């Protein structure tokens, strides 16, 4: 039985002198060298065991899944992606913590303390070796970082990764391992490690519950909680996150945990350990204080100015008489944006007189204390007022001719990109048929209008389908069989159609966009089954008539010589789970206006 749990013999381990000669005073150069060899030999074995540990391997796998879950759908922005990679490292850190605790608590857990005490290597030597053996977790962490960086790089990211953030993820894994050894040195029960890992994770998962900048002091606040606006920024923001200070804090915690583990297992050199512990504590506290500093006012001023007046920061280009305004660095998205818009324009018999503008918008929440902590309330109110004047439609671009793309919302590829392209094409088609900017004011305030029975709605959907060719199942998904959605217009429930990506926020159509109806989609779907030239001929003949809101979809169907598709009626009293607002026991539901613009 060895400390390696029956693994290979240790080269050099036998070179250590008898236990009696291990007093600090009696340590000769030779015995110190022997002890160093013992530590290195044990560390090599511990590192090998850690690399092969099934918990660590499972942690790498789980960390990879976490990173993939966060990154696959998102636009690859490096100032956001590198923090997301750290969230995968958090999963690995949990596994390493449990594995390290199991390793350090092995002698006491197996009731082998006396046997271990008879070995030439002392408990403190073994602890030192276990701490050095955490190097075994480094390849796992680096593998995770490398794979994630490669994944992001393949998707054509914007910006450059922060070395401090990536290093922080690595330090998190090492700090968790050191904490596991410290826990295991004192508490040998496996539950102690599991509890430690849970505390590490739960505090990070719930970091948004802590006030001010405290989330930065936790192990790795999840972006969806503590650092929630990284993916909405047009570029890196200094101090958000405070990456270098966070890495320093994690390094300090790692050293502190190692010192605690050594202090538990040795009765000698306590003064040296105390001094080192004080230094580590000072570094940790200093790093914590740096993280609690507010983000510089100048940087927030710049951010708010970028959001309030995008023209001051964006680069605008005009193609096919459409103006595209994007923040610096996002120019690589231009071809992906132009393609669906150009396709829609190519099928138009005539263009509207108002020019179309596609521009990025920045939506930041100043109520987030992590972003604005430490700044006076008056200053935050001034920023909020500045942002309020920059809402889409309020700026110099007319609401009816602007398509807005929230920063960070455009997917990098895959099926989501197809959906986003369809949404952009639909927004352009709505502009083309004058369905844009038609949100009305109902009894409940500002609300999307509904183009009930209007021909131009079907034309817009047909144009968007023609431009991007989405799969029929995606389109049909907005009309689940026997599960119609509806909205109330003039005390009548109108079945509606949820186009693909309606809730994803890839695109904000002109004027917010109308609420499309099931009848409009079904007619457009029937139009796609007709020869394209035939439909184009019918539309081009009296294009102005089809744009008139009084022209009905039945007239369009008649002109195309096809029957008007029938829409199943929504039952008056829906069963639980169905969405069908309407007159209920309390009276009529909220009414939506008809699009008349």
């Amino acid at each position: 039985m060895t400390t390696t749990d029956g693994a290979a013999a240790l080269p050099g381990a036998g070179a250590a002198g008898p236990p009696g000669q291990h007093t600090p005073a009696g340590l000769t150069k030779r015995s110190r060298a022997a002890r160093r060899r013992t530590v290195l030999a044990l560390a090599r074995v511990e590192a090998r065991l850690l690399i092969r540990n099934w918990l660590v391997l499972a942690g790498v796998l789980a960390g990879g899944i976490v990173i993939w879950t966060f990154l696959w759908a998102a636009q690859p922005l490096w100032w956001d992606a590198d923090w997301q990679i750290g969230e995968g490292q958090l999963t690995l850190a949990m596994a390493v913590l449990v594995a390290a605790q199991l390793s350090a608590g092995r002698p006491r857990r197996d009731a082998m303390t006396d046997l271990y005490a008879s070995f030439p290597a002392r408990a403190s030597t073994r602890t030192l070796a276990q701490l050095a053996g955490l190097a075994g977790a480094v390849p796992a962490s680096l593998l995770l970082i490398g794979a994630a960086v490669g994944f992001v790089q393949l998707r054509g990211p914007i910006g450059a990764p922060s070395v401090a953030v990536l290093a922080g993820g690595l330090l998190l894994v090492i700090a968790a391992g050191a904490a596991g050894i410290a826990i295991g040195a004192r508490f040998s029960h496996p539950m102690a490690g599991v509890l430690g890992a849970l505390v590490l994770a739960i505090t990070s998962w719930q970091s948004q519950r802590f006030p001010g900048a405290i989330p930065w002091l936790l192990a790795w606040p999840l972006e969806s909680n503590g650092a929630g606006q990284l993916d909405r920024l047009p570029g890196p923001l200094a101090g958000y996150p405070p990456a270098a200070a966070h890495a320093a804090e994690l390094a300090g915690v790692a050293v502190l945990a190692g010192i605690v583990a050594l202090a538990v297992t040795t009765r000698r050199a306590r003064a040296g350990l105390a001094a080192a512990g004080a230094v580590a504590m000072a570094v940790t506290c200093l790093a914590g204080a740096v993280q609690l500093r507010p983000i510089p006012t100048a940087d927030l001023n710049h951010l708010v100015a970028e959001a309030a007046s995008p023209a001051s920061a964006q680069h605008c280009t005009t193609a096919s008489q459409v103006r595209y305004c994007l923040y610096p660095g996002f120019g690589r998205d231009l071809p992906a944006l132009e393609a669906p818009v150009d396709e829609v324009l190519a099928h138009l018999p005539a263009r509207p007189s108002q020019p179309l503008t596609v521009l990025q918008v920045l939506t930041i929440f100043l109520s987030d204390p992590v972003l604005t902590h430490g700044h006076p309330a008056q200053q935050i109110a001034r920023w909020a007022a500045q942002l309020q004047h920059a809402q889409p439609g309020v700026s110099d671009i007319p609401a009816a001719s602007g398509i807005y793309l929230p920063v960070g919302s455009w997917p990098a590829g895959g099926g989501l990109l197809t959906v986003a392209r369809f949404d952009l094409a639909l927004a352009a088609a709505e502009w083309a048929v004058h369905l844009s900017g038609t949100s009305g004011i109902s009894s409940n305030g500002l609300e999307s209008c509904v183009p009930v029975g209007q021909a131009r709605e079907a034309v817009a959907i047909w144009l968007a389908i023609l431009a991007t060719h989405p799969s029929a199942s995606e389109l049909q998904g907005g009309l689940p069989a026997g599960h119609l959605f509806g909205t109330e217009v003039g005390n009548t429930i109108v079945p509606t159609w949820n186009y693909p990506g309606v809730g994803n926020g890839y695109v904000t159509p002109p004027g917010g966009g109308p609420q499309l109806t099931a009848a409009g989609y079904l007619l457009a779907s029937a139009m796609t089954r007709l020869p394209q030239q035939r439909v184009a001929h019918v539309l081009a003949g009296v294009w102005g008539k089809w744009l008139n809101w009084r022209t009905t979809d039945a007239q369009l169907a008649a002109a195309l010589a096809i029957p008007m598709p029938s829409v199943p009626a929504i039952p008056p009293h829906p069963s639980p789970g169905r969405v069908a607002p309407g007159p209920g026991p309390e009276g009529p539901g909220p009414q939506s206006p008809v699009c008349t613009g």
Partner: protein
Amino acid sequence: MHRLTAALRDDQTRPAARPGGSWLGALPPLTRPIIRTMPWVMLITACLISLAYLAVLAHFAHAPSPPLGPDAARLAFLPAVAALAFVPRTPVRPLTQTTPVPAWVVPAGHLLLAAPILAATCWAQLRIIAGTVPPHTLGPLPAVYPLIAQLTGWCAVTVAVAAWARRSRYADLSGAIAAPASLAAVALAWYAPITSRFVAEPPGSPHGVTIVWYAVASTALALTGVAMRDRWHRYSRRPHRPGPAGHDRAGYPFRKNR
């Protein structure tokens, strides 16, 4: 173990045959050893950590922060669920099996003792969460019964995984295996698109989620019963079937058996 055998000896119970029902008489004297061998410290520590964490969150949960909800309760309950993975254990199981009382009585007794502790923790958590909801809140509060069903299901799954891990060659680390494994399984079911509509709310309805989690709990408890009643004795190697020769890690020759 000694306490159990001593208790049985005092009761004049014969350690040989175990006809149906005759061991029931040994239960009253077993109560005390079961209570004494219960891992109280670990379970109560985990429950206190759960409550302390939720109390800290509740301290910060004031306007403009939203009040605590079922999500916070679920996360805070994880340490208690993890501790439950270490409860069903039978020390020296091969020896315990030779006693007149079935081996599953002790872990089953421990689980019965753990149930009120967990229930009290859950109740206290709900009280803490209710305290963060401001008075005169508009709209209905989220239903509690799906949350209770979910936590019950998590506990049952954890116990089942731990009971089955006890019957493997990694019996000594059954709790350390069962805690992460069961939590990972729950997380997978929670977030996988195929299963989330049945086990998570939303997208599942409160009623449906409750039914599903109680069904999961019932199945898990049945599996736990099967695992705890299993009397199959595992050998690290089969003694009578020679295989190809090899060397163990210490360098001693042995024959590989499969």
